[in-house]
């Protein structure tokens, strides 16, 4: 456990000088900027929940899969670019600790991004409403519901994180992971209502907004439990894999 804690700390030190935090901050900022101007150009006020769901939809639909794709590629390229795997794998440390540390940091940053999107959306809508009271969101803001929704989306994104991180760590080139992320997001956008979408990693989070409660529950369970299983498989595979 001590070496796992050290691996987490070491991972933090490597990422500190990378642009991971900038990436993590840019996603909520972009969504907040969009919601702010979108509200200002509107003609009538809508309930808070409806405006907040727009932010959640943009996040789950596009920015979450693309953000996870970019983040996992960045975290993996920290080792691929300087070809540091041989050095790390030759150390007297359980190899799976390195991969678990990376997964933990990616999940932590995605959690921060989720919180950032939620807080940024609320702040942008509030500010826009102050500038243009005619379109200010109406009624009470049910923050408990929003936190629960973003929390569920986050849990359902475990499968997406596992798949993207696995690809990014497995291949030294960033192309396979990037192609999978872009392709998955593309199909999530163009075939958003496809039945099979509930099991596709890139499409699972958006299904938390489905009107059918069963579909939302399946997406949550599959995304979360499937993600944990995929992460465990990733650790076993990468730790035992030979790198020539």
């Amino acid at each position, binding site marked *: 456990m001590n*070496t796992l804690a050290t691996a987490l700390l*070491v991972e933090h030190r*490597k990422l500190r000088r990378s642009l991971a935090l900038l990436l993590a901050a840019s996603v909520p900022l972009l969504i907040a900027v969009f919601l702010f101007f979108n509200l200002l150009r509107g003609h009538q006020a809508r309930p808070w929940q409806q405006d907040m769901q727009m932010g959640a939809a943009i996040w789950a639909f596009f920015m979450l899969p693309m953000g996870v794709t970019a983040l996992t590629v960045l975290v993996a390229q920290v080792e691929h670019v300087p*070809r*540091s795997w041989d050095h790390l794998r*030759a*150390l007297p440390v359980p190899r799976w600790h390195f991969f678990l540390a990376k997964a933990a940091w990616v999940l932590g940053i995605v959690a921060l991004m989720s919180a950032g999107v939620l807080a940024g959306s609320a702040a942008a809508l509030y500010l826009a409403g102050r500038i243009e009271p005619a379109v200010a969101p109406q009624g009470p803001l049910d923050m408990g519901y929003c936190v629960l929704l973003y929390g569920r989306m986050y849990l359902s994104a475990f499968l997406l994180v596992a798949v993207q991180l696995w690809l990014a760590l497995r291949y030294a080139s960033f192309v396979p992971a990037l192609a999978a992320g872009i392709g998955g997001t593309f199909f999530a956008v163009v075939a958003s209502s496809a039945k099979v979408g509930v099991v596709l990693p890139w499409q699972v989070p958006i299904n938390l907004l489905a009107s059918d409660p069963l579909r939302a529950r399946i997406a949550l369970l599959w995304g979360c439990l499937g993600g944990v299983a995929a992460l465990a498989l990733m650790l076993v595979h990468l730790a035992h894999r030979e*790198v020539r």
Partner: protein
Amino acid sequence: MSFAIETQSLCRRFGDRLVVDQISLHVPRRAIYGFLGRNGAGKTTTLKILLGLLRADHGRALVDGIDVAVERRAAARRVGALLEAHGFYVNLSGEANLDLTRRLLGCPATEVARVLALVELGAHARRRVADYSLGMRQRLGLARALLGAPPVLVLDEPTNGLDPEGMADMRRFLRELPERTGVTVLLSSHLLGEIEHVATHVGILSQGRLVMEGGLAELKAGLTAEIRVQADDPARAAKVARAHGFTIDAADDGLTVRLAPGEDPREGSAALNRALCAAGVAVHALHPELPSLERLYRAVSQSPAAVEATP
């Protein structure tokens, strides 16, 4: 006798190609063992098996008596490595890079300063690795390999890409290392001169097989010295030399006179010169050639049969 590094009939195949073929290495403690072979001979694959990065198809690899395949982490604690790909985070300083590895090894914080001083890199410790020259990166790699004072160092082509001055510095550093730190060094290279300058023992790899192994001095003592002769009449010079009991090899540019094993080439040259001059042969040049690693290498490369001396 226990060895710092030992392999027993090590084999490794990639697809149809047998890259490592029944290699049995014996690296004595505190030796500088030069692991020689052409590019693609199987040196790096053998080193990767020793470091637990690749699995052997057959045979055993032992570091300080520990089987790498059975107890990888225990074996890894006994060995520091400098690999061809350094794997430094170039946006971090040299010191920060060492500190990451130091933490993973669980060494005290003072280790970083100690190894930086050993490789004489303390003055540049706070600079980003991106600003380091190749020679400085090699020294930083050595410093990282020395973290935790492992009893065994595995260095894969440590002089690759260095300028002549950097190579000389590295040779000096490696020569002094066993005495300063008590470490055993396994050093792979395809540069014969580099190995000859630093190694106490050599192992020569050819097409995946270990074709020669032993103490460098003993192996060289088994070779005969040669004298290259250039004269106005090579045929007559050869006749005179033979008449005085020398063994002759004809060469395109003159003669090569082979001395008896252990015979002093200086005395041999003087005797040969006297005989040729007395016979009226005009001698243009006499080049005594001492037994060298290059000749050893040529000999085993031409004849794949293994030559082995007791380490």
